[in-house]
């Protein structure tokens, strides 16, 4: 399958601090690709680099086999959508206003939308199950609803690739599943490639086509969950004890954390 995005020997550094080192991998079209790794491993830096938000030290990122740096910003925005980690809880806009902003790459400088743009926004809002909240201000929504509104905004951009930085962080179990189901539907119903960062390995194991495990900015493992969700690989990466078994809920692996006190683990 042809890649949606291809990364070749990517190095990224903040002043005098290397963050990503020699990363080479690709994400296929229509794939749900999840980046996992310990805190400070470079996950957010990587997803920002893929979105063209950071200047890279060396290497190349190719989108549709063309280097990201050769894209005009507006062209990039028509192809790649990015949902940031930060929660803009105090946004003064309504859901509909914010979602319509996703049409910006297709509009003139004053951002006056057409009937078609409005319909696209309506569909994006419906797709994320927020039709009944379209007129509500973002600041009045719950964290999960707001996250879905940001995803609706990204969908409204009509991207081929959507990048999400920890979209399930700080959400309760029900909202986590709803967001992940949404990603799954985007992949299957719209053929969109999805790359996301997650701290929840079990959630990643349930939904990802492939996982990328980052440790200290380097690729520790990359492949289907059955290859990456491995006791030895994960316990080394996260520097903690864990057990991997089959989930009783479905055909995927499950990671069980172990307490540092061995006697307690034995008792339980």
């Amino acid at each position, binding site marked *: 399958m042809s890649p949606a995005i291809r990364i070749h020997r990517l190095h990224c550094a903040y002043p005098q601090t290397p963050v990503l080192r020699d990363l080479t991998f690709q994400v296929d079209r229509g794939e749900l690709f999840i980046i996992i790794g310990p805190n400070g491993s470079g996950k957010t830096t990587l997803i920002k680099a893929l979105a063209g938000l950071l200047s890279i030290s060396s290497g190349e990122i190719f989108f549709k086999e063309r280097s990201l740096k050769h894209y005009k910003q507006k062209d990039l925005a028509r192809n790649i959508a990015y949902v940031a980690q930060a929660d803009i809880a105090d946004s003064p*806009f309504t859901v509909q206003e914010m979602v319509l902003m996703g049409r910006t790459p297709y509009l003139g400088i004053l951002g006056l939308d057409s009937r078609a743009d409005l319909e696209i926004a309506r569909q994006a809002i419906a797709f994320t199950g927020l039709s009944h909240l379209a007129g509500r201000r973002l600041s009045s929504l719950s964290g999960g609803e707001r996250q879905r509104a940001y995803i609706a905004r990204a969908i409204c951009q009509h991207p081929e690739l959507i990048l999400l930085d920890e979209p399930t962080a700080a959400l309760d179990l029900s909202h986590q599943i709803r967001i992940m189901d949404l990603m799954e539907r985007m992949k299957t119903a719209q053929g969109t490639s999805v790359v996301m960062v997650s701290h929840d390995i079990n959630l990643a194991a349930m939904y990802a086509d492939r996982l990328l495990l980052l440790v200290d900015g380097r690729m520790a493992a990359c492949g289907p969950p059955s290859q990456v969700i491995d006791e030895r690989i994960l316990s080394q990466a996260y520097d903690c004890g864990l057990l991997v078994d089959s989930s009783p809920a479905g055909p995927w692996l499950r990671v069980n954390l172990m307490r540092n006190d061995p006697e307690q683990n034995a008792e339980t």
Partner: protein
Amino acid sequence: MTPRASSLFVKMTVVSLVLLLLLVAVMAAGLAMGSSGTRLDSIWTSLFANGTGHAMEDAIIWRIRFPRVLLAALVGAALSLGGLVFQALLKNPLAEPYILGISGGAAIGAIIGIILGLSRIPGVSLTAFAGSLVTLVLIIFISSGRAVVVKDALLLSGVMVNAFCTAVIMFLLSITQDNRLHNIIFWLMGDLSASQIQHVGMLAVILLPCFIAIFIYSNRMNLLLLGSDMATSMGVPVRRVTLVLLVITSLMISVTVSQCGLIGFVGLVIPHLLRLLCGPDHRILVPGCVLGGGAYMVVCDLLARVLPPQGEMPGGVITAMIGAPLFIFLLRRSKG
């Protein structure tokens, strides 16, 4: 046109028309009222026909009140719009034209001009303008570089430059004696009394293109409120937009301050009031601030002229006396 786009146009038109009518009404009041009252029909005849037939009345309207009312409208528009832009750029509700220290630089320039015994116009205006430009370049130099115009760096360097300017102003005040001290204090409190039509014309020539440029960027200001990463990912060249808006607004504020001195609270009160009434869309707020800010300043200047039994007080006193309580009211209301 979609229902939303057309509703945006309708809202923009209605808000602009209402505020335009308000501005015209308060400008008419500004022309009619003063130490000697003038009938509205006389104003009309003087401005749009062949004059009232009374040389004194025509002179009062044309040479004193008309330039002053126009200056007040332009100053109010620029300060209000400046506040709106800085609040969007810095995502800080307390941002206003003076927060970046540009006014401090202008004040130093003006005080030096007054101490040197230069005429009010163009001497003091030019030194004030030069002072504000030096400050602007200094702030951009400090806060830019590799990470061009990071908003926190901008805010902090502005606060620091402003603090330094305040110290220099206090130093200059402490070494100044005689009637120049009175002139300095009057200028520092904001004063429109020395307006002349040719200077107002020059100000308008600089400000009107700034208003139009900011309106063109109004939708991008909406996107900046979502955060720079989100805005960039939607195709907004955040660095360029930030820098352009910063330079345009700083130019606008520096030429305004050089004409009228330090007038506070207009850039805080009007954008917040309009946001409360019209919502957060900058495509509506930009024309709203130009017209509403202009109307507010004309009213404040009118009160500054007519309230004292003798002479007049600086307009900045009235904008602060109305603005501070109004801002507290708006703050409490928005919290509720």
